[in-house]
């Protein structure tokens, strides 16, 4: 599978990354080099092998339903790039 410039732009946008027009050729060729390595997966006969999402065969542990966290909003807001009236602020979002 090979990526063309258009696809590279689409992926970059999905990941919210900028790829300048001047870099696009370079980026596409790097990604295609890497993908050619990954495409070797296609040749492997995995038979009926179960996909392994996790190295350990464990089940999810459940947490007791109790409130254990204190309000740390002050500390959190102090390190935020832009805040106001207790909120995190971003440029106006149009719905």
């Amino acid at each position, binding site marked *: 599978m090979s990526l063309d410039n258009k696809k590279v732009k*689409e992926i970059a*946008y*999905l990941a*919210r990354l900028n790829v300048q027009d001047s870099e696009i050729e370079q980026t596409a060729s790097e990604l295609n080099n890497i993908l050619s390595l990954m495409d070797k997966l296609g040749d492997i006969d995995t038979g009926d092998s179960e996909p392994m*999402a*996790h190295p350990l065969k*464990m*089940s*999810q*542990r*459940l*947490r*007791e*339903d*109790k*409130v*254990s*966290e204190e*309000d*740390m*909003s002050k500390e*959190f*807001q102090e390190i935020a790039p*832009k805040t*106001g*009236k*207790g*909120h*995190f*602020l*971003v*440029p*106006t*979002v*149009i*719905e």
Partner: protein
Amino acid sequence: MTWETVIGLEIHSQLRTKSKIFSGASTAFGSEPNTQACAVDLGFPGVLPVLNEEAVKMALRFGLSVNADINKNSIFARKNYFYPDLPKGYQISQFEIPIVGNGSIDITLDSGENKTVGITRAHLEEDAGKSIHDLYDDFTAIDLNRAGTPLLEIVSEPDMRSAKEAVAYAKKIHALVQYIDICDGNMQEGSFRCDANVSVRKQGEGLGTRAELKNINSFKFLEKAINIEVERQIDILEEGGSVVQETRLYDSIKNETRSMRSKEEANDYRYFPDPDLLPVAISDELLLEIKKELPELPTEKKLRFVDTLGLSHYDAEVLTSQKEVAEYFEKMIHQGADAKLSANWVMGDLSAALNKSQLEILDSPISSEELFQLISRITDNTISGKIAKDVFKLMWEGKGSVDEIIEKQGLKQMTDSSAIESIIDDVIANNPDQVQQFKDGNSKLLGFFVGQVMKASQGKANPKQVNQILNEKLS
């Protein structure tokens, strides 16, 4: 040309756990912004989710209530998209294997007929925060208190054929989640939210292209939104156009739906199993335990009302359609109230008064104990049913207890036969013509005499005695 409407609903029900689904932050509504969002909810670097046991149990409670298949190993997945109120850039949800699989629920249509609506699945996920657009001119403000609140997303089959059916289904689910105590059902606060997938087709044809309606926060708007969307789609199709598959926002002020382009662009969610969470194993023991703890469900309650209390199917349906109403009614029965009379009062005067004042039954100024007392005064012949209506009004206005009102207003029923007799004697003496006609065979006039006696006694005379004495005197 007849068009058939096809509707499926996705209901987001906030689970009433104390803490969030993946963190120990509180879920309480209405706190100062961001004071209930901990490091996990804010998606700080390095934080990890741990699943809330109660959220799992609540999902199972729902699953068992709709006779659904329970997946013994469900998987949490990440739904990836960027939005400022989604702190991690992904929502933890369930995708391929949800905790609750196929189930169904019966709804009662206006015709009185039952219809079974399929439930495709119900899965656990975390709620997002809130974007506030009207706090600043140049900024959108983000409050992440809601982020991480547990949600059960209940997805129906596209089984509804009208807005009314969709509302009946939504109400049924709304009642159920409150019955089984997993959601407070508060639609204003967003605890119970409906998205509707709406499409139209010519009868007998395959499914049409659907639009997903969002932002519906009442049953009234659900009905309106679907109806207006159906009209829009039919107009497009009849003009030879085609419906676009998209998300549309319902605007209740303009009563219209409009396209939400912002949500549409590039919605490739790239779901994959969340590597921070492991498969949720559900044991048979846990299922059994939850089944045992399950309260009486609305359908079971309805049947019991019919079978053991002798109510009609209609009355039983109305009384069980809301958990609080059923509880109010049952409290009266437990105190020994007559079932039929109680049903009539709850569904009649009480319900009318609540509607008029736009109150929920929990906020009723007349408690179930008080209404029980009122009914007792009817059955013990202290007052008549008609006088009871007046007492009810005074009680509603807070003029005192049942007995105080009866006492103060002198509404106690007249049961002294000699007193009733003397009123009847006066009535007979004052209406010689009618007496003659009655004696000539116009038996319908008995009602006239009863009316006159009741009027003269200011409604207090015991109607039974009045009838009896009148009959004796006039014969």
